[in-house]
């Protein structure tokens, strides 16, 4: 039987694995991107390819070693490079002599036939359309549970009394959701997990800074690519809010713009009225919205050479001035080191603290 794999983005792999297995595939879960993944990826991809493309190339090579022969991935119509990744990956892999099948899922609205074909190819168990829809719904619920758990961990971590508690509980809770299969189980696992996180001893009076994270979706969602920035920030006593989640993003793309999407677009339009592909416009819109909601600072995460984020960064300088909110950008690639990143983060958090202290006129700001 053919073995199948897919791109890994954060914890979402737990859902995709379940869904693909439901359709009757033998699934190889892509391992967490490691140093070796990066090394492999870099060796065989162009120097200025985006960082996500490099990591994925490494992942594909690793899973090929594990015996996969089919890769399912998303397509897209751009205007950014992500829509053409699959094509390049396929060419690079065949150039290396690997014969793998690529199932590229295109947006159903634009390529209904292609979408249908991909779904058929994945549907090994020959499940009826109704059955597939039920599986999608359940998978979606699981994805939401995973996202909700992560969101709560961002709130609890900066307030925990014993360092590392949150991360430990979070890891465990992820497994509970992973084990859940039916919708009822998923809902139950989710509430137990949320409860467990909430019952971590916290210091309610701690003065916690709030930072919004904007940027390109892959580096936002895959901790291995952003060097676990959320954890680091949490440990520095910062509550983070990520502007994008798979459940908050897939919806935008396949169910048209949601109410959320529209406000982000509107917020961005005085600065960038054009959709430039990737998440450039969202980065600007979210920054404006975070500033309006009174956040203390913004961190932009972008892959090195990422075109839309470079455009966004150029404009963010102005947004930052207009709204008086500090913005720190990381252009990430294989050379970004954790130590360097932490130093920059510590300095940034210091700056935010001093700014807040100055603004509120408090003499002693204890944290």
């Amino acid at each position, binding site marked *: 039987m053919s073995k199948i794999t897919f791109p890994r983005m954060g914890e979402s792999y737990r859902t995709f694995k379940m869904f693909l297995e439901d359709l009757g595939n033998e699934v190889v879960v892509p391992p967490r991107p490691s140093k070796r993944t990066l090394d492999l990826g870099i060796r065989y991809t162009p120097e200025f390819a985006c960082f996500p493309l490099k990591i994925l190339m490494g992942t594909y090579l690793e899973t090929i070693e594990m015996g996969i022969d089919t890769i399912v991935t998303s397509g897209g119509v*751009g205007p950014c490079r992500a829509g053409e990744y699959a094509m390049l990956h396929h*060419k690079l892999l065949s150039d290396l002599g690997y014969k793998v099948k690529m199932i590229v899922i295109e947006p159903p609205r634009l390529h209904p036939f292609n979408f249908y074909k991909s779904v058929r190819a994945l549907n090994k168990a020959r499940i009826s359309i109704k059955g597939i829809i039920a599986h999608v719904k359940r998978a979606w619920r699981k994805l939401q549970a995973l996202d909700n758990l992560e969101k709560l961990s961002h709130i609890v971590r900066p307030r925990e009394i014993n360092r590392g508690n949150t991360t430990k509980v979070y890891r465990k809770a992820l497994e509970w959701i992973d084990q859940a299969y039916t919708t009822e189980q998923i809902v139950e696992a989710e509430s137990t997990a949320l409860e467990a996180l909430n019952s971590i001893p916290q210091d309610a009076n701690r003065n916690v800074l709030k930072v919004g994270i904007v940027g390109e979706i892959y580096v936002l969602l895959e901790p291995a690519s952003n060097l676990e920035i959320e954890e680091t920030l949490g440990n520095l006593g910062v509550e983070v809010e990520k502007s994008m989640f798979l459940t908050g993003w897939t919806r935008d793309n396949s169910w048209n713009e949601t109410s959320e999407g529209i406000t982000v677009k509107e917020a961005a339009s005085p600065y960038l009225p054009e959709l*430039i592909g990737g998440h450039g416009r969202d980065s600007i819109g979210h920054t404006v919205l975070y500033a309006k909601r009174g956040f203390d600072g913004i961190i932009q995460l972008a892959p*090195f050479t990422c*075109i839309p984020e470079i455009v966004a960064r*150029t404009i963010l300088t102005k947004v930052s001035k207009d709204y008086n909110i500090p913005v720190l950008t990381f*252009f990430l690639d294989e050379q970004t080191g954790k130590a360097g990143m932490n130093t920059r983060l510590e300095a940034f958090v210091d700056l935010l603290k001093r700014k807040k202290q100055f603004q509120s006129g408090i003499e002693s700001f204890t944290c």
Partner: protein
Amino acid sequence: MAVKVGIPNALLYYIYYPLWQAFFNEIGVQVVTSGKTTKDILNNGVREALADACVPVKIFFGHVMGLKDRVDYLFIPRVVCVNRKTIYCPKFLGLPDMIRHSITGLPPVIDIRMDSRQGYFAMLKAYTEIGSIFNASKHSSFRAYKKACRTLNRYNKLLQSGWNPHEAMSLLRKPGSLSKPPEPSLNFAVIGYPYNIYDSFISVNLLDKLRRLGVGTITTENISPLLLAWQKNCGLPKRLFWTFSDRALKAAHLLFKQGRIDGMLHLTAFGCGPDSLLNKFIELEAKKYKNIPFMTLMIDEHTGEAGMSTRLEAFVDMVKRRKEALACLK
């Protein structure tokens, strides 16, 4: 005194300047350009633009800096799509916004959106809108646009008969003022974006250097669009999304297939996003044509005259020796 509109000599300049100039002159507006790229322009651009931006965008910033105090308007249209199929690199799409939000003291920026996917008359509408800024009637804008299109056609014909943009522009002004150089012994394809190849400052005089080494060049702009369109998607499941990259890949495929060239160069800018795909696709294609040597030249703001010359000379030498050796074998 006539109103002055500034057009930076960068990015789309090499493709559309004749049209823009003709249009503005026809509606009674004076056009001012920023002239050739210089060291100062580059330095200004490097200072004003984001460090992570590509060289061509930095240079564009530099040109704007050089123009902004001399003109009443800056013309930085938001060119999204002109052929209903491919769009321009996202940096072109956000260009007016990047400029507006990072350079201070700008005159009004004309950033009309040009997107032919919006309908058959989208372009005409865009130009009448520009005309209305200068109080030109719809009718006179229409006439000016028609005339400008004819100028652009003449320009494109000149390009397709083998002239480069600089030569073609002077031929438009003074027909017959240039004569064709003698047939060179070697012919190279130079693939890349027009704003890199023809900007003699960024390309470190690439075309001139080749000419002095006795090498004739053919570029994407020299090829008729019909022949390019014929290449379809170059054997890929999807075409490249970006206009210039798509054209460059098609040109590379066509020229490889025709086999009339002795070598191919791909000029790419440091940090260019689309080129990471384009270059790889050309490189993979080049592997199939062992008899046509291929080389990638990367330029950035520090590329030096000497380094470029050495690499070019070595490549030309290698191609020459190969050609002689092959001739002996025959």
